[in-house]
């Protein structure tokens, strides 16, 4: 059976309908703060049990890809990442929306998500077996350095002060240590609050840290939440296409980063988008605009997080190791369908696998019109809704979203307490983004460090374990490049300025 036949098998009316319904359902669920892509897949997975395996996989892939994209709406329009994958989208998406370019940001997010999704699915289609072996080369030490790589972004996220950014990052890192330690089992920073034994939930914390300060600030003065600049009726497709044409290398790089990070079990869309954002900022001539509404920032994060969908399926299907949390649920659904994943899957179950991959590509393409239409509707709604209704409605979503993660009222309390604390810290000039970055990457960094330390100790050299492995060395090189590159560029510009001034004299 050739590739064209698999494509035709994916193009049945039922599969197309499932892809459309999955993308719409995923996008809507992903857009609600607190409802993650994992939850979208988990809630809707029982509907697929009665379907044919390929059709079920197409539906689940469509839900997953739609949910990852849907997270961008709340990130851009409300400064609240709908899913953890869209954290970095808030950095430039919300400033764009505040500056009257929310519609453009949404269109860019949609186009970038489609491109990222197609690149990830393309890798899955063409290079799945060899790329899956890359995942096996990542040990605890590589995860540690990957987390450190993400943490280097903290230095640039402090509003006007690197030191303040680092302090905020430390706050997030300390928050990540609350509860029972994953390695060693120490109970840390819990005190009398037994509800904290499970640690600070990342999704609830995200909602609180990003959304509550926005709500508190929204009520302070009259006027609209977002500036629509009278162009609500337009998709701004031409403008978006021009911007994307200029940023084609950024899109390609971010999509590849997303695919590779997606392949790494447990890393996921949040790390992919942060790493892609960091790289886009490092090499961009407009790096000073990042964090203030730079379209390239939105393109980098959205292409990267959607590329993780295809990337995550690579180890899931080839090795039976889920690349991302939603992949773990999809893996379970596959087992229910009687499909055993593994290296032989692509030969023994080729019709199912290739029909699914083509279905995923179709779902990603369907996301383009669906995403643009839902994006326009969401933007018009957010602009038109009076603040008096918007504030309590969004507050209600934050409470529901943080409760729904684990059906735990204590997580609602965590969310609000962290949100109010973030607002107070914001008034003192400490931005929420470094705190979030520290919170997300802290546990990955610590787990990698402690496990690497133990393994290194057992092998006789901790230093060789951390600094002697090829992938670690490559990541360390990127870390140093990321830290030193802006300093070197600034120094070169200053020297050129001095030379120019001397020549003019």
């Amino acid at each position, binding site marked *: 059976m050739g590739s064209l036949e698999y494509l035709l098998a994916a193009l049945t009316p039922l599969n197309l309908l499932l892809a459309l319904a999955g993308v719409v359902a995923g996008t809507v669920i992903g857009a609600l703060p607190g*409802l993650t892509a994992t939850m979208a897949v988990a*809630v809707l997975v029982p509907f697929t049990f009665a379907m044919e395996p390929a059709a079920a996989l197409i539906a689940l892939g469509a839900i997953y890809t739609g949910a990852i994209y849907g997270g961008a709406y709340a990130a851009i329009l409300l400064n609240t990442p709908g899913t953890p994958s869209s954290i970095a989208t808030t950095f430039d998406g919300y400033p764009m929306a505040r500056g009257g370019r929310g519609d453009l940001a949404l269109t860019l997010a949609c186009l970038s998500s489609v491109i990222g999704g197609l690149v990830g699915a393309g890798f899955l289609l063409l290079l799945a077996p060899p790329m899956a072996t890359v995942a096996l080369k990542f040990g605890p030490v590589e995860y540690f350095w990957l987390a450190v790589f993400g943490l280097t972004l903290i230095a640039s996220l402090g*509003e006007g*002060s690197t*030191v303040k950014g680092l*302090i905020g990052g*430390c*706050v997030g*890192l*300390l928050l990540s*240590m609350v509860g029972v*330690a994953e*390695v*060693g*089992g*120490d109970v*840390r*920073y819990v005190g009398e609050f037994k509800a904290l034994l499970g640690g600070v939930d990342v999704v609830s914390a995200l909602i609180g840290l990003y959304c*509550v300060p926005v*709500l*508190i*600030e*929204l*009520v*302070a*003065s*009259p006027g609209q939440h977002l500036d629509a600049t009278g162009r609500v009726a337009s998709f701004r497709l031409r403008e978006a296409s021009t911007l994307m044409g200029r940023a084609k290398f950024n899109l390609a790089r971010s999509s590849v980063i997303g695919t590779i990070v997606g392949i790494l079990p447990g890393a996921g869309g949040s790390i992919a988008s942060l790493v892609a954002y960091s790289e886009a900022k490092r090499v961009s001539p407009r790096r000073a605009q990042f964090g203030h509404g730079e379209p390239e920032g939105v393109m980098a994060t959205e292409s990267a997080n959607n590329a993780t969908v295809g990337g995550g399926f690579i180890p899931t299907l080839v090795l039976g190791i889920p690349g991302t949390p939603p992949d773990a649920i999809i893996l379970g659904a596959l087992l229910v369908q009687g499909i055993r994943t593994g290296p032989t899957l692509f030969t023994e179950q080729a019709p199912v696998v290739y029909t699914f991959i083509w279905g995923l590509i179709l779902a990603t393409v369907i996301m383009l019109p669906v995403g643009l239409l839902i994006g326009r509707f969401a933007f018009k709604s957010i602009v038109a809704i*009076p*603040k*008096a*209704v918007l*504030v*309590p*409605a969004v*507050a*209600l*979503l934050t*409470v*529901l979203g943080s*409760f*729904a993660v684990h059906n735990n*009222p204590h997580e*609602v*309390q965590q*969310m*609000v*307490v962290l*949100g*109010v604390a973030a*607002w107070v*810290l914001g*008034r003192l*000039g400490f931005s929420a983004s470094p705190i979030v970055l520290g919170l997300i990457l*802290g546990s990955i*960094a*610590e787990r990698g*460090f*402690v496990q690497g*330390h*133990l393994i290194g100790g057992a092998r006789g050299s901790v230093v060789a374990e951390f600094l002697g492995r090829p992938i670690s060395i490559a990541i360390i090189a990127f870390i140093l490049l990321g830290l030193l590159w802006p300093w070197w560029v600034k120094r070169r510009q200053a020297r050129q300025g001095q030379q120019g001034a001397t020549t003019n004299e």
Partner: protein
Amino acid sequence: MNEPSPGRDTPGAIGSALLVGVGVAALVYSSEFSDLGAVFPLAIGGLMVAMGVLYLVFYAMGRTQRAAPAAGSNLRRAGVAVVMLAWAFALPSLGFLASSAIAFVLLLMLANHERWTLRTVLLYGATGVLVLGGLYALFKHALQVPLP
């Protein structure tokens, strides 16, 4: 002693001092952990204290810049914070619908800057019922979330 200049970041210095305290507390409590469990808390607590002190030194040297203070009503801001906190802690005892209905009305009042008319009362009231009822139905029945 010189008064801080308008450009100096006094709020940032206060925040740094508070977070130095948090860092010290993190260091003190880390003595209760095992050697392996204390590595990261010690490193991060130490870094936090060092960065906080560094910022205070910058402040003393006049090398910090204060961000423009936010305009608007601080009373309304504080009101939202209090309502959200009360809502979160009342949720288990009052239940979702009762606590949310009360919080929704209070937040609506805090966020509204226009004059109240019969039309706005009816319109906002109906919207509130629709939003609350719609989201309750979505989460409780469609998504099977066991709301308190």
